[in-house]
């Protein structure tokens, strides 16, 4: 399963369950929304991030970083986002049209790739979604009782 397939499988399930897709991206899709670090708005500035999926339902926002395998750097990236709020302004601007109560940052991977490393790194993220097949995913880590 490629990163593209992981992202599209999650998108499919989110859309089917009434989520509004605010942003999505996968390698070479050309759809990514570049989020600048706080207080830096020059479009050409480095340091920007492109979220793989941002979805909103009700007052809940899910922020995904997806891969075709477990990459610990992604967990660190998510941890940084949660902890440092470095992109808060950009995220808030992106979600300006929505009334958001909570933003949850997590990882999307093929379900069968969930391994001991990912398990150990789980507490650094808000959720981990495992893709089994298109339209069929499961929470591998979900302390906040989120639902897709």
């Amino acid at each position, binding site marked *: 399963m490629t990163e593209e397939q992981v992202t599209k499988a999650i998108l499919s399930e989110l859309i089917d369950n009434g989520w509004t897709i605010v942003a999505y991206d996968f390698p070479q899709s050309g759809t990514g929304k570049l989020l600048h670090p706080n207080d830096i708005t020059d*479009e050409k500035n480095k340091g920007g991030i492109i979220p793989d999926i941002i979805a909103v339902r009700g007052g809940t926002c899910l922020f995904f970083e997806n891969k075709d395998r477990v990459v610990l750097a992604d967990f660190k990236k998510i941890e940084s986002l949660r902890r440092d709020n470095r992109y808060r302004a950009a995220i808030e601007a992106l979600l300006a049209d929505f009334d958001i109560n909570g933003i949850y940052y997590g990882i999307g991977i093929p379900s069968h790739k969930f391994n001991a490393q990912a398990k150990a790194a789980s507490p650094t993220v808000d959720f981990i979604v495992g893709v089994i097949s298109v339209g069929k995913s499961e929470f591998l880590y979900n302390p906040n009782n989120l639902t897709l």
Partner: protein
Amino acid sequence: MGKTDIADAQIDAAEQPDIWNRHVPVEKSAYVQETAPVFFNLDGLRVPDGSLTMLDLFCGAGGFSVGCSWAGFFPVFGIDYLEPAITTWKANHPDSICCLGDIRLTDAETIRGLLAERGVGHINLITGGVPCQGFSIANRKHNDLDNRNFLFLEYMKFVDVFDPDYIILENVSGMRSTAGGQFEKDIKASMESMGYTVTVGMVNAAEYGVPQVRQRLVFVGVKKGRNLSAKYAIPNGKYSSSKSYRTVESAISDLPKLGNNECKSRYTAKPSSEYQTLMRGEGEISIPKPKGLSNHTAPNHPQETVDKIASTKQGQPMYPKFKQRIRLAANAPSPTQLAGGIRPQFQFGHPTQPRGLSIRERARIQSFPDSYVFIGGIVQERVLTGNAVPPLMIYELVKPIAEDIQRKNEESRHMYRVWYSTESFADYIIDHTLLSSRQVVKNKLYESDANNPARFHTMPDHIRKILYLDAPDLIVEKDNEPIFSVEVTTEAGTGHNAFQRFARIAASVENEVPAFYIYPEGVIIKRKGSSPRWDVINPAVFKALDAVMSIYDIPALLYYFPSDITDYPNPNAADAPNIRNKGLQFDRDIVKYSGCPNSASGEMAKMFDALNEVISATEAKGTNSGRVSLLRNLVIRERRDFMSSQFALKARGQDLGAMSPISATVEVPTQSLLNYLSRYEGANYKIGELLRNREKTIIYKVNARFRGDPYPGALAALDYLLCREGKTFEERRNNLVLVFGSLSVDSDDQAITVTDDNGSSIESFFSDVKHSEQHNLLSKDYSELENSVIPRYFMQVRYGSTYSKVKHVRVYSYFADAILFPDGSLWRDA
């Protein structure tokens, strides 16, 4: 001859059961095979190359087999339970397998296995003239519960097992009224339940050139999901009005006259009509010529019958009690020819001779060719010729079926492979073009050995060649030949950025592969302190693409990425509905076609049309011939004209020289360049011919630190816009030089100076080249290579570091005759 020839005189009215009497039970024919089915010619099956294959169920004498064979089908198997039918069918189909037996006692799976063992896998068509006695209005024992009415279920068992592309079931017109029309509905529903789209219609054989009025109900089913026509349309017959129907005279007037009980086996006259020519194997349809004249024997009438016929006017009944038994009218088509029961008397009187028709004359009226021999004795041959479906009508009905299957086979012959950067884009192109009905395989495209060292070498050579400069988003190949590439971007196309992807287009066209470029007409940009506004495409890109097309005679076409720019131009960009996506309209299906342009837009529809033109041209003419003819294609020409008009519209009178990146160039005498490079000459070295031979030099000034995008693409565009006159960089009018640094020109002294404003250094170039060398395996020993890496090593042995250098290094070194840095230079000698 088969059974004993029983003369009509011996069929005494008193002995003959009255088949028209409802109270008399239906007689069973003595020729029915009631015991276990018997197979014939199991070792003699010979299917001609290129034939479509068919099964003929309830084949009778073989009307379906004959008509379908004229259209290109070969009947591999026929089955009937009447012995004279199979005897006749077998004699006329010596290379086919047949079965004498009740279809209810056969097993379709067994027959499929028999055929598979003999090399027949797929069956294209199953035909069935399901016995009509149960449905026939002519059979006055018409009975809805007649067992023969349910034989279509046996037919459907064969359909289920063989799963053919097409099915045809034919029956008498009385089927329509049977059980209040329920049988027709049930048959249609049964076919549909097996995945067929069904057409039901009443056809009249006379409208298809048969010299007989014969209404039949036909069911034609097309299997869904096989790239066949969506639905079969019954073709109109050429003989649409009764005034144009072929007549009895045109059918049989050339056959020799016969006296009572006389037989003749030679023609005595030439054909006198187009129909007779056809029947004698000399017409437009490829029909064997007969070996002499067969089945032309007059019935043996008692004198009373001869007198009866002689005294009857043409077109009138000979017997008041039996209205169907008429003396034929020469100048009209025959009424429906019947079997007339299991031991029929003659039905029709000859129009000009006092006798009943010969079997050959009955065969002619049914459009069986003279080469088709009937065997079974005169009485059973009447049954066969009466029950048969007319081959000529079947031929006309089946011709479009054969063409459809052959078209599908032809299209399936080609294997398409789509190389993609994203699977979404591959699906987008496949689903919206002719590729959706072709055999297509999708493969991930790996850009370079530098980007994808683990995978790049696994791609075929002919694809790698297109990638030597840069990789487009999609390449489509047919039978291992690339036929087009597509590049899509959502970047703002202003200034130099318009050419960021140009090298990909150039690489495709330089390999004679048509290139399609999806580019935004504009993109909404929001800058701090100002309102959102459209950044509009740099029109110079149209000129560059046109230059590429002019040199290579291969299409390089641009299509606008759909956007809101037309309806919300500046200064109303802020109102654009898709402002979140920079004004771009993406496809609504963001799962299947993630990141793809709105497929419902007019621009994309035009692009799909153009892609289809490329596909069709390469299928029709072959890949090479198809590609080189494309610039003459009207759809392609229209796009080229549009691009030209868009340049004029968007340039708004601005000179090309004032547009990026041309505005970043300066033309100098080549002597100026040579003077600059003379610092590298010495006693043992002089700058080579290549630069010297061109009078002028175009210098692209990039006053920035050494880097890639957007400059490689811009450099490629400048080659085509200002320098190139032929298909290689050697065929340039002007030298093309890239300067990283600040350039000053002294025209008087023919001197140029390159200074540093931005920290640009030749060391950056060397650093990038050295960095690329980390992908180089050539310095390794064999023992250091893992097995999976050996093919990559072998590729590098052949191509060196062609694919392992970083992209901008590849592009600069390909397009630039020289690269000048403040602290060093690189140049070509030849």
